[in-house]
């Protein structure tokens, strides 16, 4: 069995990694919440965020003048607008044509047209990434990620602590943005009932484009933050797709706040599972939790089930 120290160590590690997970789940939650689209490519946008941060710091060294501490953090933030732009283009030219209020249900593929298009985007990003970035794993090295604070017997990685705080702050900022700005309210109206929002004069397509781009951009920042504490390659997105969906489903499909808490919890589950399971199976633990939630409480912690016969 494991000791109390192990338990606290896993718990704190889970909480810290959970901060980044919560941020990436928030991004996905915005997309699902407003568009009701399952985005398979979310993990690959996260991967883009990682590489954007990598090239800004280590790769091209654009940000080296900021020093080893601030550079990677600024790079993670800048990954947001970069991937936001990629997301904007992908929505403008691909996703918008199969989603939104104006598009009739696609014959044959049915409502799955959207999912399949995101699957296509995922394949292109992943394999395009392989072509552009190569298959060798890379990482962003910062002095912070190699030093720890000690509280009693528990080690807290400094890099992860900083990432955690930034992730929480950004998620809070996004939440306030959605609740208190005109654009955010438009997004939420379009999410509740896109038809009604359309009649009320809200440009639903634009709202969806903003939601999509914002969602992938936020997830990319989370990717940039995670890139400081692990190595990655173009296929890394897979590892996170399920993490994200588990978090979003746990919080309740459609609830952005739920996605945040769900992501945090998934981080804790993942790290705690290493206490009882071999390291390679920590993602399998997430699958198990994911399936359990889907079967036992599909509405999640914050969601509602509404179905009429």
């Amino acid at each position, binding site marked *: 069995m494991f000791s109390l120290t192990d338990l606290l160590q896993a718990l704190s590690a889970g909480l810290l990694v959970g901060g980044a997970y919560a941020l990436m789940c928030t991004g996905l939650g915005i997309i699902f919440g407003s568009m009701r689209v399952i985005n398979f490519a979310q993990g690959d946008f996260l991967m883009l965020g990682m590489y954007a941060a990598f090239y800004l710091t280590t790769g091209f060294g654009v940000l080296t003048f900021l020093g080893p501490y601030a550079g990677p953090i600024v790079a993670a933030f800048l990954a947001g607008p970069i991937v936001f732009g990629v997301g904007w283009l992908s929505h403008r030219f691909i996703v918008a044509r199969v989603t939104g209020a104006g598009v009739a249900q696609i014959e044959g593929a049915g409502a799955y047209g959207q999912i399949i298009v995101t699957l296509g985007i995922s394949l292109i990003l992943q394999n395009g990434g392989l072509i552009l970035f190569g298959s060798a794993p890379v990482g962003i090295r910062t002095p912070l990620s190699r030093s720890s604070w000690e509280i009693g017997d528990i080690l807290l990685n400094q890099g992860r602590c900083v990432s955690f705080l930034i992730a929480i702050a950004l998620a809070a900022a996004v939440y306030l943005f959605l609740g208190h700005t005109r654009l955010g309210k438009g997004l939420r109206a379009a999410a509740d009932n896109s038809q009604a929002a359309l009649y009320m004069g809200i440009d639903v397509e634009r709202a969806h484009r903003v939601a999509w781009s914002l969602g992938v951009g936020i997830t990319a920042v989370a990717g940039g933050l995670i890139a400081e504490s692990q190595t990655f390659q173009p296929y890394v997105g897979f590892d996170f797709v399920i993490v994200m969906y588990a978090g979003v489903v746990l919080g309740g499909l459609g609830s952005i706040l739920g996605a945040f808490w769900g992501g945090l919890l998934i981080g804790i589950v993942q790290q705690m599972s290493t206490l009882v399971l071999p390291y390679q199976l920590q993602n*399998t633990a997430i699958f198990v939790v994911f399936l359990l939630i889907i079967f036992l409480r599909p509405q999640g912690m914050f969601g509602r089930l509404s179905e009429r016969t």
Partner: protein
Amino acid sequence: MRTRSETHRQRLAIAVFAVAVLLVCMVLKSAYYQLVLTQVLLWAVMSLAWNLLSGYSGYFSFGHAAFWGLGAYTVALGMIHLGLSPWVTIPFCAIVGAAAGALIGYPTFRLRGHYFALAMLAYPLAMLYVFEWLGYQELTLPMQREAPHLYMQFADPRVYVALALILLVAALLISLKVENSRFGMALLAIKQNEPAAEAAGIDTWRWKMLALMLSGALAAMAGGLYAVVLLVVTPDTVFGMLVSAQALILALFGGVGSLWGPVIGAMVLVPLAEGLNAELGDVLPGIQGVVYGIAIIAIILVAPEGVYWRVLDRVRRRPAAVPEPARPAAIVVPLARERSVDVGKDLLVLQGIGISFGGLRALDGIDLTVPEGGLHGIIGPNGAGKTTLFNVINGFLAPDSGTINFAGEPLIGLLPNRVCRRGIGRTFQVVRAFPRMSLLENVIVGAFVRAADDATAEAMARTALDRVGLGGRADAIAGGLTTRELRLMELARALVSQPRLVLLDETLAGLGHEDLDGILGVIRQLRADGVTVLIIEHTMRAMVRLVDHFTVLDHGRLIAAGKPDDVVRDPRVIEAYLGKRWVEQAIVTAN
């Protein structure tokens, strides 16, 4: 369902296809091209397997790699650890795949839509990690120098083409068989409207499970043969996302829900991706995935129904004199079951039925007795709980309290299709048709409950359509019908299962005067034939003329019951409909 001659044509097409593949195989000189051809055939099998579940039933699986990978590992591990020949293990893969299908389907079919897709995605990825953890990162099938043929190892790559072709022909014949049977009809009905299929007596659970098991068996066998051909098995290549994605991309590209779509998709995309990979793989390592990504986005944007359907529509648009298929000799099928009708005896008895949704008490202590042969009306304002009551009776909802007895037997806990089998048919407030099927097919779906074979089912469906006056419209596609025709079709679909009791949910709503008289006539005729009718309406006028007993619901409670004339004078009923202020006035007017 296809006519017999069409089926015959399809079998011929499969034979021609097989011969063509063999000819191509003879012509191809390079072993590499023959390997590519083998892969085309195996991926066609995989995609057909996916299509069998997802194409027909509409339950999209993003996790078919689970079956493919289990098949590949069954063969590889069988050979390495147990010395078993693929001749033994590949057939055994069918059992592995079917068992995996059953294990996966059992919990997962409780989910629908997005949830189903997400859950299916998780299975192969979870297996991937498990197989990595077990230490099977890379398995190489050992060369058997002693007796290579006994271990399915051949120097001539054309043998593999032939083996893959056999598997593909089998998959095509199985798919054809499914398409032409009630199995296929049931899956199509599930795809188009699952609750309606269930209420029409289709055991949706059973058909979905069978489809997934069959699909899993085929996919596992293809995966097993794939391992034999490529000799190396790694978790990423057999459980990876690309495998699941490829299965569905090929089917969607070629034409989802069709026999030839997956084959077309495999024949176009697999050589394309392979070729690019061979030419450019060194410079552009991920080119294969990029090709699939672009292909699937292009097909969804340009021709979302897939190549097969697009071409078929082009061909069909040419005006062709299609001879009216000869109607099968009219088998006379009684629509009402032979039975003695105990007029007046209690048929349906509800006691203390209650159900809540969250804080809302939708039904509260409802007692209701419907005598056999009666024509019983339930009225009440919007939100009174009328449709909820029907959903409780036919099994869509389980009540929190109370009992339901039908012909002396309890109904609670039965699935809707079982309730239908017991003899309760229903229609829906918002008509639930199978929009892409003809009227006749819509009704045939309901006939399977009683019909022993498909010919009888068709004859029964025609009789039922004649009965409601739609006999001349049997071949019209349901998607383009008027409200009146759809309501009559639904009535026919409910009747064809020879129910003792039909539940009609606002069958009269939204109809004009002339249409109304027609439907009222059909309902009266039903009663004359001994079928008990329970009908919901919220407009009273038509009902007063029709029914012999009223039950009035308001806010989930039963507020009045009795003869129509008495009920409409009941002050509580007037209050429920018009508000308190009107009660006094109504009484004054009545006097």
